[in-house]
């Protein structure tokens, strides 16, 4: 189903169709090369020794016995890694201090999270490397682990980093675990609350949740004797890996070549550096290419999930239900190093609404757990769990239909987002209307045949999306097929969605554009595959390159026709002489004549797309059934409506909506880091982390709303991330509707639902985290 807004739509031939993806056959045959599939002549295998403690001084590391073991080629410790000076680098969805980026990949003197690399070895095979780890002697002095907000923020807190200087509302504060405290405000929320007809304030607790990509990290490096370093790695950010490798290893940027392999899921979690520098240093020591692949436990222990934390949100409305003010205090646990996307949380928490008076305080707090990473709409699902749960409860309090409330207060074109920017044309209202018109919304919830409780919940959500730098090179082959070279790893069909945008310009079928993702030496700079930017921004680079190709071919056919290029038109894949209209070449015919008119045509579209991806809003509707005797929640029905601007490939757009919804449902119901008081994750396996299986979900109805994005030639919006924003509150609101009691903490797992029901029987309000 598709909803188009009122403005006259562009006509498209390719965009909006559903071709089979270019890389699809390789992927269904098992031929696609992912990180761990890399094979090189002389390849040996690395393994990493990780700290069993969340916080400990490393007094001694002795790798001599490991190094001497049969089959072992090299062993390294923190002493083998260059010492990096502190310097901030912006990796788009992550800002990293290089010193910490370096320490994070290999501990220097102190382990600050469980799973922190302490040493690494390279050996003839994986098992020999793993066995050699047992021969490494490490002397630790365990320190008290700081793993909660309370412990990290208290006045006499154990300090994790002596060199962390906090930025607290612009003031430099040493000796703190609070890396940053920001405030965004306008108007006078206190005055507005004082005048409001109703005010509600609640505190919500959100668990750390992992991206859960099925492919563990795997990196292979070869440090050649001429000091050129090649890295094959499963990453969303090959150019980011190049620059941070160069910085961490203190080598020239252009001596590092990063080859992105196929990537088995990322969701933001495969942006940062992990084992790439370790493999490189092991390679330099051994003279061999070295591959290191994480096991699943290390992925949970030592890579970055999305941050958990606590959000206090407050909202006041007038007697008609119009929002008069809202405030929030967001506290996120960044993990062992700063950077928990509090700015995105600030941007997103009230973005769906017109809020005339607002204040948002946000805290980025370090704790002794692995550094969090970007995770799909970083920081925003957590904050939105608070705001959309609060809105639902507020509606219940004032007796207003949530849909009516949303429509009454909906942000629209011209509304100022709480953190400043003014919205361009957006699909916020269109998404709510799409839900309102859906079969799901019109359906009866029905009654359970066996005493279970049913409920329906609604929530909306927002993610801005990014633009930034992309380069795409298009070359025309003699047969009129074009090759398209790009630098964004394809996680979910972006080869095809980028190629389709070029094909649209050429008027060619999608399969006459052959896209290839190449290494960092083979294409101009590309920012990472993240931030919902790839189809949006690299698509614009492809359009730009394609337009240049068309202009060049115009010159060539003008030469043949002995006319001026201005006299050549290009429409429906046909070049025509406007002066002599019987002179025409199809694109393919023209392509065959390039050799005789000046040689090959190859053009690069290099763009830096300013501003946002247009912003993609979503509205989700969820039906649940709760067994009040066990606390079990079953998702009965789920509908996700979201604004795609223009869906380049509707199947992949639906897939993003469905996949994000499924992840959000996982957060809502079961996913969390269940951690011992000393900072050890107890459920570091797919068994006990409990991501949804096929049997846990219904079909997910995806409604593609299309309100064109004025920032993109075809109206495309970045759409990959918003879909994870509304699910947790939509599920929570449905549970509250079912059991008559509110949940204030994720995951809303069976034990917590039973506790909430017991509290209700005892006259307490819901489950307070």
């Amino acid at each position, binding site marked *: 189903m598709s909803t188009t807004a009122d403005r006259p739509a562009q006509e498209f031939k390719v965009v909006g169709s559903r071709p089979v993806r270019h890389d699809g056959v390789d992927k269904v045959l098992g031929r696609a090369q992912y990180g761990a599939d890399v094979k090189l002549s002389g390849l040996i295998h690395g393994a990493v020794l990780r700290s069993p403690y969340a916080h400990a001084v490393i007094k001694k590391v002795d790798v001599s016995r490991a190094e001497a073991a049969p089959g072992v080629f090299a062993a390294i410790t923190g002493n083998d890694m260059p010492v990096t000076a502190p310097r901030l680098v912006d990796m788009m969805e992550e800002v990293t201090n290089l010193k910490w980026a370096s320490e994070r990949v290999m501990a220097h003197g102190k382990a600050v999270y469980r799973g922190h690399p302490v040493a690494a070895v390279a050996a003839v095979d994986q*098992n020999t490397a793993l066995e050699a780890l047992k021969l490494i002697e490490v002397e630790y002095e365990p320190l008290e682990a700081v793993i909660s907000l309370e412990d990290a923020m208290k006045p006499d807190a154990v300090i994790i980093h002596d060199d962390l200087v906090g930025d607290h509302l612009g003031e430099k504060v040493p000796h703190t675990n609070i890396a940053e405290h920001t405030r965004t405000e306008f108007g006078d929320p206190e005055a507005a609350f004082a005048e409001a007809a109703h005010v509600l304030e609640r505190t919500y607790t959100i668990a750390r949740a992992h991206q859960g990509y099925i492919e563990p990290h795997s990196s292979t490096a070869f440090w050649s004797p001429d000091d050129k370093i090649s890295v094959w790695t499963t990453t969303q950010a090959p150019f980011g890996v190049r620059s941070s490798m160069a910085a961490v290893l203190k080598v020239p940027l252009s001596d590092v070549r990063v080859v992105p392999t196929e990537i088995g899921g990322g969701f933001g979690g495969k942006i940062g550096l992990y084992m790439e520098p370790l493999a490189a240093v092991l390679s330099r020591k051994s003279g061999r290419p070295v591959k290191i692949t994480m096991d699943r436990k290390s992925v949970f222990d030592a890579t970055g999930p999305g941050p958990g934390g606590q959000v206090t949100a407050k909202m006041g409305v007038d007697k008609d239900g119009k929002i008069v003010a809202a405030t929030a205090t967001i506290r996120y646990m960044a993990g062992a190093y700063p950077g928990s996307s509090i700015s995105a949380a600030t941007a997103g928490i009230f973005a769906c609404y017109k809020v005339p008076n607002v204040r948002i305080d946000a805290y980025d707090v370090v704790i002794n757990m692995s550094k969090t990473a970007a995770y799909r709409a970083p920081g925003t699902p957590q904050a939105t769990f608070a705001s959309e749960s609060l809105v639902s409860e507020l509606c219940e309090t004032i007796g207003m239909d949530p849909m009516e409330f949303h429509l009454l207060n909906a942000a629209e074109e011209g509304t100022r987002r709480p953190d400043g920017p003014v919205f361009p044309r957006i699909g916020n209202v269109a998404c709510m209307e799409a839900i309102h018109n859906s079969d799901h919304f019109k359906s009866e919830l029905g009654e359970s045949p066996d005493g279970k409780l049913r409920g329906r919940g609604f929530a909306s959500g927002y993610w801005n999306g990014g633009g930034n730098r992309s380069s795409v090179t298009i070359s025309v082959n003699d047969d009129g097929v074009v090759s398209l070279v790009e630098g964004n790893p394809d996680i979910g069909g972006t080869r095809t969605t980028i190629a389709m945008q070029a094909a649209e310009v050429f008027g060619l079928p999608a399969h006459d554009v052959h896209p290839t993702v190449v290494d960092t030496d083979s294409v101009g700079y590309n920012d990472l595959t993240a931030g919902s930017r790839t189809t949006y921004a690299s698509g614009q680079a492809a359009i730009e390159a394609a337009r240049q190709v068309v202009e060049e071919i115009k010159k060539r056919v003008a030469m043949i026709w002995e006319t001026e290029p201005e006299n050549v038109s290009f429409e429906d894949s046909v070049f025509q002489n406007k002066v002599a209209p019987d002179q025409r070449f199809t694109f393919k015919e023209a392509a065959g004549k390039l050799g005789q008119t000046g040689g090959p045509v190859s053009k690069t579209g290099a763009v830096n797309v300013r501003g946002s991806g247009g912003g993609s809003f979503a509205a989700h509707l969820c039906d649940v059934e709760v067994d009040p005797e066990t606390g079990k929640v079953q998702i009965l029905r789920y509908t996700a409506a979201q604004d795609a601007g223009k869906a380049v490939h509707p199947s992949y757009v639906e897939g993003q909506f469905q996949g994000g919804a499924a992840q959000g449902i996982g957060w809502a119901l079961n996913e969390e880091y269940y951690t011992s008081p000393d900072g050890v994750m107890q459920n570091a396996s797919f068994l006990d982390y409990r991501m949804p299986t096929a049997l846990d979900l219904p079909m997910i109805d995806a409604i593609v709303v299309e309100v064109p994005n004025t920032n993109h030639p075809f109206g495309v919006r970045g759409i990959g991330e918003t879909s994870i924003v509304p699910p947790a509150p939509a599920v929570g609101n449905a549970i509250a509707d079912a059991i008559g009691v509110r949940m204030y903490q994720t995951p809303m797992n069976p034990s917590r639902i039973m506790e909430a029901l017991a509290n209700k029987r005892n006259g307490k309000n819901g489950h307070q985290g």
Partner: protein
Amino acid sequence: MHPFIYVAPRTLDEAVAVLEQHGERARPFAGGTDVLVQLRGGRFDLDAIVDMKGVPEATTLELNGSLRIGAAVPCYQVYENSAVAAAFPGLIDAASLIGGIQIQSRASLGGNLCNASPSADGICPLIVHSTVAVVRGPQGERRVPVEEFCTGPGATVLERGELLVALEVPAPARGFGAAYQRFIPRNEMDIAVAGVGSALTLDTDGTTIASGRIALAAVGPTPLFAAKASAFLAGKPATPETFAEAGEIASTEATPIGDMRGTAEHRVELVKVLTRRTLAVALGRAQANR
């Protein structure tokens, strides 16, 4: 993983000899779904793995009134055998929910017992069926009631050189019915937060419980036989009230801890609910079996 050798004996005596030689540095191996995971996780090291799948006594499923399940018989062979499924639906409840389809191709009820996890799904139904474990060792064969087999988390009565050969499940009496249910937050692939196996035998009147057996999973250091709740059932009418009271009693026999899979309080509640629910299913099966 510490390197080990792979031994595939053809007879029980060969298997016992290898196990005796290596002591606790060798283990019998059937589906591998527990032992390989534990080896990779560094729980213990082995020098030898003894694959039981070539030993006839460990790989045969015999139904002859009573049921003999070779220790290495994978779950799917149990639940895909229609005669076994018809006669022992309470066992099928467990055999068909351990892991997913892939795991059921490999995992065995015997392995589930030897792994001795407190949350094992296979053990409670074996207990309520009064199953006997047939053990072979250097001193010959001995027979152990399943409820006495596990001695702690991951610990069993097996001595050096001993292995589990088979599980002998008595023929269900007329009027016998059994059921197993577990509670998990997802719908598959989880470890039980709590599990309850129940069995009852109806008196000739068809409404009175002659005897009953209840066993609990994931609420103590081992799957445990709920002696008080089981004794309570004898002579009681087979009614929802009786089942609810049995659940209350069973919950007092549970000694759960709170962990990542659920709180202790939740587990106690689940014992009540699952006891009631499994007894109701068992009653239906008992009535069909008269």
